[in-house]
């Protein structure tokens, strides 16, 4: 339940930010998996934009729209093959007004 509360808050926070979403071209992809690795599971807590969520089959899914391109998930999960990480195409993604 606490998670749900946090989630709303993060979405509210992201609402302040400016994004140019590259529709249909997500820059981060979670590789298909049966059971998430510990690091992949950790992202459901640790991603500062709450992009990662567990689905009802116990697998981790990503919605990269609110991504702030911090690279945390890449550091935790790219090497082990859990995710494929790229920057959005030039000009797309988060656009900090202040930074």
């Amino acid at each position: 339940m606490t998670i749900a509360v946090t989630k709303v808050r993060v979405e509210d926070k992201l609402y302040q930010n400016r994004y140019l979403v590259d529709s249909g071209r997500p820059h981060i992809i979670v590789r298909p998996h049966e059971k998430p690795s510990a690091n992949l599971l950790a992202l459901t807590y640790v991603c500062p934009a709450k992009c990662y969520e567990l689905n009802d089959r116990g697998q981790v899914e990503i919605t990269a729209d609110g991504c702030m391109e911090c690279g945390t998930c890449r550091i935790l999960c790219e090497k082990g093959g859990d995710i494929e990480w790229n920057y959005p195409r030039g000009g797309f993604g988060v656009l900090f007004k202040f930074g």
Partner: protein
Amino acid sequence: MIEQFDAIVVGAGMSGNAAAYTLASQGLKVLQLERGEYPGSKNVQGAIMYANMLEKIIPDFRDDAPLERHLVEQRLWVMDNTSHTGIHYRSDDFNEAKPNRYTIIRAQFDKWFSRKVREAGATVLCETTATELVRDGNGKVIGVRTDRAGGVVFANVVVLAEGVSGLLGTRAGLREMPKPETVALAVKEMHFLPEEVIDQRFGVKGDEGCVIEAVGTISRDMAGLGFLYTNKESISLGIGCLVSDFAAMLESPSALLDAMKNHPSIRPLIAGSEVKEYAAHLIPEGGYRAIPQLFGDGWVIVGDAAQLNNAIHREGSNLAMTSGRVAAEAIIKVKSRNGPMTKGNLALYKTMLDESFVIKDLKKYKDMPALLHTNSSNFFTSYPRLMSYAAQNFMRVDGTPKIEKERATTAAFINARSRWGLVSDAVRLALAWR
């Protein structure tokens, strides 16, 4: 048409702008690539900017750079859940003609710096992501591929100024990807308040500014640091902890930040503010031992991409600017001797950087990152709690004889950490600091 440049700089952050400006102002043909819509749109910083290192690049920057406040006071707060023990340093000497440190807003600052780069003659292409290094048959880097149509560009040397999570260098195998225990994840909010309210709450006036850095239970057993920096009409507030700690503790960074804002010492400082942005970024914290190979055939690495960041002193932008400038000066020297941009010739960059404060400072603290990483619960939770206990016990006047109070404090420290633990922490801290 194939266009050949003297140098391509990947990234328009602090290090890339310093490099591109220095190269272009010496007449080199420079192309700079930036993936953001404008320089700064992807960048996050606290942000304190150190004048000396920028002065070495643009001596008269104060004339038109977007600066917020110059710093006259610094506070270090050691926090437990309800208190803080503070060390404050304030001096009117900081109200000098050419102040030493300023707060800045990176999106604005980077735009300004980039304008200077263009005025110096470089070609700056925004909204362009470099996707891959291009090499010749011998492995020498000869250019970069971009995500623009037909987007391969060539140069004698490529300056990788792509920041902490840069893709090019790691994909090309020039350096390792940072490890979870050598990078911190920081989250930050911009809190807007009228200028007079900030002046009043922080006891400053005019362009004076104050910074607060906070360690302790706000990072919940993780190695971390909170910060609160005054801008003209806003407060930059954030907290960062090691990625490895976040993953081990399954903490939510945004919840951690919210808890910090609710701390009774911090809440009144931001009361009534309007939050206009929430940002996240990594900070390289591996220090000296994490610095990768800095140069090779046709390439150099500068700034955060090279882990040139002094986490102990929360300095990064100045190391970035300096490494960018020094790399550019080395390239200029090699070119002026008509030398090719080979590994042997570009070693000059490393030699010059070794002589600067950048490498000397990082070397000084080479053992700190490991110490803080393995001792985080003592340094960030036990000791702050004990300090608060000691201070409160000392200040409460309740009829207990002072000698008993002293004994109780000593006992609390020993209880929490054992005599041996305390001594060994002190020794290790002293050795790492040396």
